[in-house]
């Protein structure tokens, strides 16, 4: 039997990691992405390699996924990660009241944390709020978003996956029974439209998963919840600085290259193709960021930007929706075979999302092959651009 | 909304230095003066050859070099030589890793010296 052909839609973290996993399991993989690599949410993510500590009280399932996956990524994607740990700092009584639950949660989720005296914390990070009352070290890191996606994509390519960038999926193609067996796409670099047939269509389109599902007449309950981030032109800290409390707005400051980035907010949006950056939100980020690092109040800004989370579910409070991912077999949910959607999750958990998706695809197509993405380091991200391929990387 | 236009040619791209920094101006002027000096060298050899063609040619030559236009051209050669030589000092120094962060300031100082020198030559050559 010839190799099964999987058509993957979306080249964000999830799409690239899934392409890699499926290619290693012996699939022919074609990835269609309407922009360049990581042109959706992935490229614009905050960049925190989550230890899970942030969720260890409010969402322990996510927290456990994060600590497991951040360890794996630190091992396989070290090429694009600043792995310097992070601090959770308590600044007021409400923070102090949260400490017990935080410590207990971290224990439950087996996240190694370490209490640090305020004096030691200030010694480690002189730029943080001198009013720090309590501090904990956690194994956080920072990643370079584009390069993380490139590393997965380069590894996928090395195993034979084909990436078609600037190719937007416009329609799903079905066989006589209403099951998917291909897609029609628009190559935006040439203006031409093409059809592509495959054994399975996998949508890894994050916040756009609902739109893509609609093309097939299926339904995915994904709610795009954007957030704003502000970058500052100075590297004030070496570690991720988190507010020791329930997840809230502007409560993380990350170091990255010569910068720090403050994030983020959370609200709901209808049109995710263009979400303006509001000045109010930027001002709010500066204010919240300055609670953690006072110098941010006056530091020169480097940029402000917006990205849209693909949150799955239909809860009321965006922040309280679980951040774990969900894999939909549309045969079960909509009676449409040949179509799988993976959405939700986080950058930190993209490899696990890929593994779960590839497991589902294998089950559906009767392929028995085990996941091989946990141990081996990813190829150099630069190998995505391979010699002799011409302009269409 | 859409308008048909031609994309700039490669040569035109090379000449887009008006938008650029001091270093690019220094580089472009260096190239220009080099071209000028090279052309001058050939002209020079060509004219000197006339000296070997007898007394009448010699007289023609002398009257030519006394013309104000010729003096002006000579002055242009001096300006080009001064600029090219002095900027050459800057290029050599920076190539040895000396004062690279100050290449801009160095350009303005050497450019100033070249300008002053050119002025001095102008006074000397046109007021004699």
């Amino acid at each position: 039997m010839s190799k099964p052909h999987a058509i993957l839609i979306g080249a964000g973290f999830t799409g690239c990691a899934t392409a890699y996993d499926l290619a290693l399991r012996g699939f022919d993989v074609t990835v269609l992405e309407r922009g360049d690599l990581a042109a959706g949410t992935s490229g614009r993510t905050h960049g925190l390699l989550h230890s899970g500590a942030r969720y260890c009280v409010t969402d322990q399932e996510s927290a456990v996924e994060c600590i497991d996956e951040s360890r794996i990524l630190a091992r396989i994607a070290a090429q694009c990660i600043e792995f310097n740990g992070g601090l959770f700092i308590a600044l007021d009584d409400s923070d102090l009241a949260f400490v017990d639950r935080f410590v207990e949660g971290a224990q439950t989720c087996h996240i190694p944390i370490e209490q640090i005296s305020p004096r030691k914390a200030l010694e480690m990070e002189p730029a943080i709020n001198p009013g720090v009352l309590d501090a904990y070290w956690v194994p956080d890191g920072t990643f370079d978003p584009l390069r993380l996606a490139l590393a997965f994509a380069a590894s996928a390519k090395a195993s034979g996956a084909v990436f078609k960038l600037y190719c937007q999926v416009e329609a799903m193609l079905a066989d006589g029974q209403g099951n998917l067996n291909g897609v029609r796409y628009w190559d935006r670099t040439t203006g031409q439209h093409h059809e592509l047939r495959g054994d399975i269509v996998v949508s890894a389109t994050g916040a756009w998963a609902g739109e893509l599902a609609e093309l097939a007449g299926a339904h995915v309950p994904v709610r795009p919840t954007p957030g704003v981030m502000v970058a500052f032109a100075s590297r004030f800290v070496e570690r991720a600085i988190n507010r020791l409390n329930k997840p809230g707005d502007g409560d993380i400051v990350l170091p990255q290259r010569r910068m720090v980035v403050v994030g983020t907010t959370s609200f709901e949006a209808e049109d995710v193709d263009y979400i303006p950056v509001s000045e109010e939100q930027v001002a709010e980020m500066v204010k919240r960021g300055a609670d953690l690092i006072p110098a941010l109040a006056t530091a020169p800004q480097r940029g402000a930007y917006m990205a849209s989370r693909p949150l799955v579910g239909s809860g009321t409070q965006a922040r309280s929706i679980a951040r774990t991912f969900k894999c939909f077999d549309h045969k079960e949910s909509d009676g449409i075979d040949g179509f799988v959607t993976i959405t939700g999750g986080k950058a930190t958990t993209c490899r696990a999302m890929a593994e779960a998706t590839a497991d589902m695809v294998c089950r559906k197509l009767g392929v028995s092959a085990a996941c091989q993405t946990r141990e081996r380091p990813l190829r150099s991200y630069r190998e995505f651009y391979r010699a002799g391929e011409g302009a269409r990387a | 909304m859409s308008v048909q236009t031609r994309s700039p040619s490669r040569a035109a791209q090379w000449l887009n230095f008006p938008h650029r920094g001091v270093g690019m101006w220094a580089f472009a002027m260096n190239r220009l003066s080099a071209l000028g000096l090279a052309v001058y060298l050939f002209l020079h050899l060509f004219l000197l050859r006339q000296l070997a063609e007898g007394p009448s040619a010699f007289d023609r030559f002398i009257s030519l070099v006394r013309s104000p236009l010729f003096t002006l051209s000579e002055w242009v050669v001096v300006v080009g030589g001064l600029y090219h030589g002095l900027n050459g000092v800057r290029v050599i120094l920076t190539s040895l890793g000396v004062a690279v962060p100050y290449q801009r300031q160095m350009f303005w100082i050497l450019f100033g010296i070249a300008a002053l020198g050119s002025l001095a030559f102008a006074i000397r050559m046109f007021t004699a």
Partner: protein
Amino acid sequence: MTAEVWTVTFRVFRRKGAEAPHYDFFRLEVSPDEYVLDAIERIWAFHDRSLVYRYACHHATCGACGMRVNSVEKLTCITTIRSVARDGGEVTVEPLRNFPVISDLTVDMGDLYRSMEAVHYPAVSPVAAAPLPTIPAKDGISPGGPLREEPDAHRLNDCIECGLCVSACPIATTTAGYLGPAVLAAIQFQGISGKPALAGLADCEDGVWRCHSAYECTAVCPSLVDPGWRIMDLRKQAIGRRFRRLFGRGETA
């Protein structure tokens, strides 16, 4: 907050497949403090879905959104409209030069990435191994590093492989074989002593000696890499190495 609104015409380079290139004009209402990339994104979202352009991080850490704005290379995600236009004016946006154009504003960066790989430029280094050179502050970017350097801390290196320097370089325009500022800077970052392969690449016709000191690379580099200075430093290293070899004290590696 009273938002200032400008009307700016964006003159955008277009090319699809084998078609002849042309420019399209888009008149937009913008806030002068928005970034050029925001405007381009709006052109795509609301005016022309066929516009092809590359970007990812929106805060100058990935290097994907390099373009020529009014003939000068810019990372469009951090270039405010105020800095390149005026109310009622026009802004020209073109792809980087010295790279093949894939379509519209996107170029193929493959050559640069492959060369950076060939010289083993690390993407992450210990903070101590990636000292921040003492060069004058530019565009409000602090030249200083962390307020206190942590010995074990790592950071993503400065060069974001955006290719602005390659596009700005007048030599790269005329000499395809030239290694170019980013790659030479990547070699200098690692040093050539004891590294004959790197030394060989740098100290040759298409290496440091091809540079003609226009310093445009340094002028456009958005990440304070200062390739111009690094090329000159590499020349110094290359001369030193030649001298040592002349006196029989070359490297043994």
